[in-house]
């Protein structure tokens, strides 16, 4: 299996503080030997640690832009978030033209596939085949969260591929039909987050991804700014194919809004999502569709974006308004019935949190955890490298930590030892006891 996430650590930069361990929603990080370590099987790629790290030691392992040169026909598939990153730009065609000037031969919008996925998902929902509420599978971090922490909700997750994957498939088919040799085509996703990187590199619900590389939105942004600045009015090509509905997917509520499913709920921010999923698990959420996004303000708040997500949300309004009033789109026939939009594999209950395969042993371990936890100070200081006292107790029982890792416990042991030493030093052998008065 190996590493199935895309958040990596720059060991040189990590100072071993407790910022990331305390904020990780799945308690997947520990500080060991003064460096943060990610527990591979627990990381859901939400990017929280990338965001909170003051030392910028956490990174998403995207591909360098040079990778596009490995292919003769380079295709960019930008996430709609990209359109909101530039101060005065309202017309997506400017950004898309910029991408072509940067070296791509063709651009297809993920937003266009979002519209197709919207329709397809709607059919799925209306078919009555699924347990309600149906949970969107658009945010890969949330899909991983459900797999790990909410296995009871696996049957509720919409088994439909992401817009990014769909556009990559449509693009490849289309270009081959246009006569481009298949081996020449390289499709590159411009990503706002790490979770989508993982989702392309190690796809779980499909055999293989049609995306050949993932480039960070931050990197593309820096290269696009000077290009766009020098772009003349007559240079702007009409490349846009998506409507404002598809573009809107990048913001929280965009998917629900596009689908026009009246009884839906849109939640963003991982803590809020966990609360809502708890409610669904308790059978207490009477809605048809749940859109959950790990980042505040949805993909607009992705850890690889440049602009503040609230500002980006405001820009999204303006971009959508522009598209609706003045937008110019090109017509190309991207659709192909042979492109399948269903998952090929189901999600699995991986039971990452399980203490032991044998329940009797698991219960025993649970008892030990409780016992150890009782002795700990319960102030969750993080000095031991675990996010909470309970997490330390668990780590000890799982054999990954020692009770002395807790500085309070260590101090107590030292104090007891000191007491013993004092009392021992007062003891005298019987032969010389008379010397002491």
């Amino acid at each position, binding site marked *: 299996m190996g590493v199935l996430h895309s958040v990596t650590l720059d060991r040189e930069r990590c100072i071993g503080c407790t910022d990331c361990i305390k904020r990780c929603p799945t308690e997947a990080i520990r500080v060991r030997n003064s460096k943060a370590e990610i527990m591979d099987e627990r990381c859901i790629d939400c990017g929280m640690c990338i965001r909170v790290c003051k030392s910028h030691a956490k990174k998403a392992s995207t591909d360098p832009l040079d990778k596009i040169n490995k292919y003769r026909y380079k295709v960019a598939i930008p996430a709609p978030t990209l359109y909101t990153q530039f101060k005065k730009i309202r017309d997506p065609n400017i950004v898309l033209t910029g991408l072509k000037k940067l070296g791509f031969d063709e651009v297809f919008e993920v937003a266009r596939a979002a519209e197709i996925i919207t329709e397809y998902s709607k059919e799925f929902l209306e078919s009555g085949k699924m347990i309600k509420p149906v949970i969107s599978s658009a945010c890969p971090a949330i899909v991983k969260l459900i797999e790990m922490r909410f296995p*009871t909700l696996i049957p509720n997750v919409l088994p439909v591929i992401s817009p990014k994957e769909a556009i990559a498939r449509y693009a490849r088919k289309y270009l081959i039909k246009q006569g481009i040799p298949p081996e020449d085509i390289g499709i590159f996703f411009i990503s706002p987050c790490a979770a989508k990187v993982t989702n392309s590199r190690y796809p779980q619900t499909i055999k293989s991804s049609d995306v050949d590389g993932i480039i960070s939105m931050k990197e593309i942004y820096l290269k696009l700014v000077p290009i766009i600045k020098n772009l003349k009015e007559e240079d702007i090509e009409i490349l846009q194919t998506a409507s404002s509905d598809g573009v809107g997917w990048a913001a929280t509520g965009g998917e629900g809004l596009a689908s026009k499913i009246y009884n839906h709920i849109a939640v963003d921010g991982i803590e809020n999502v966990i609360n809502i999923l708890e409610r669904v698990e308790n059978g*207490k959420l009477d809605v048809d569709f749940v859109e959950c996004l790990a980042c505040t303000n949805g993909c607009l708040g992705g850890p690889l974006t440049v602009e503040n997500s609230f500002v980006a949300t405001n820009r999204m309004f303006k971009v959508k308004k522009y598209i609706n009033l003045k937008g110019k789109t090109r017509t190309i026939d991207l659709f192909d019935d042979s492109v399948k939009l269903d998952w090929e594999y189901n999600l699995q209950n991986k*039971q990452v949190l399980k203490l032991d395969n044998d329940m009797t042993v698991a*219960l025993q371990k*649970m008892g030990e955890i409780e016992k150890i936890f009782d002795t700990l100070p319960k102030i969750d200081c993080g000095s031991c490298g675990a996010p909470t006292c309970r997490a330390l107790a668990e780590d000890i029982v799982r054999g990954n930590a020692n009770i002395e890792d807790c500085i309070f416990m260590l101090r107590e042991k030292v104090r007891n030892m000191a007491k013993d030493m004092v009392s021992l030093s007062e003891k005298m052998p019987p032969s010389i006891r008379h010397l002491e008065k």
Partner: protein
Amino acid sequence: MIFKYDVEGGEFINAGVASSEFKKVLKQLGISPEIIRKVSISMYEAEINMVIHANGGHIEGEITPESIHVLLKDEGPGIKDVDLAMTIGYSTASKTAREMGFGAGMGLPNIKRNSDNLKVSSILGEGTEVEITFQLN
């Protein structure tokens, strides 16, 4: 193994903390999702009942390799007619609780449907004990 939780009364917004904690334990023990779903629904309903009607109480969740047994004890007003309380749609919830969306009279019937055994014993003026059992095999 027994897990104990205190439930505060009147805390509608934060209600469900005990159920949530217990759920985490079940996931660590590798209990099947089907059972966890049933326990979640039942225990949450019962916990909410305590918050709405009895100003809180205590919960004990016992897990053995054979079963999960949840005991909820409160010192609330008690239930006048337990059989009536088990009827779908019957509720004595306060106006405030109803305004918050609780009190549809689905609580106990819902627990019954999602558990293997439900026992409610109550003494007026003294309190109520709700025992919910789930078989694991």
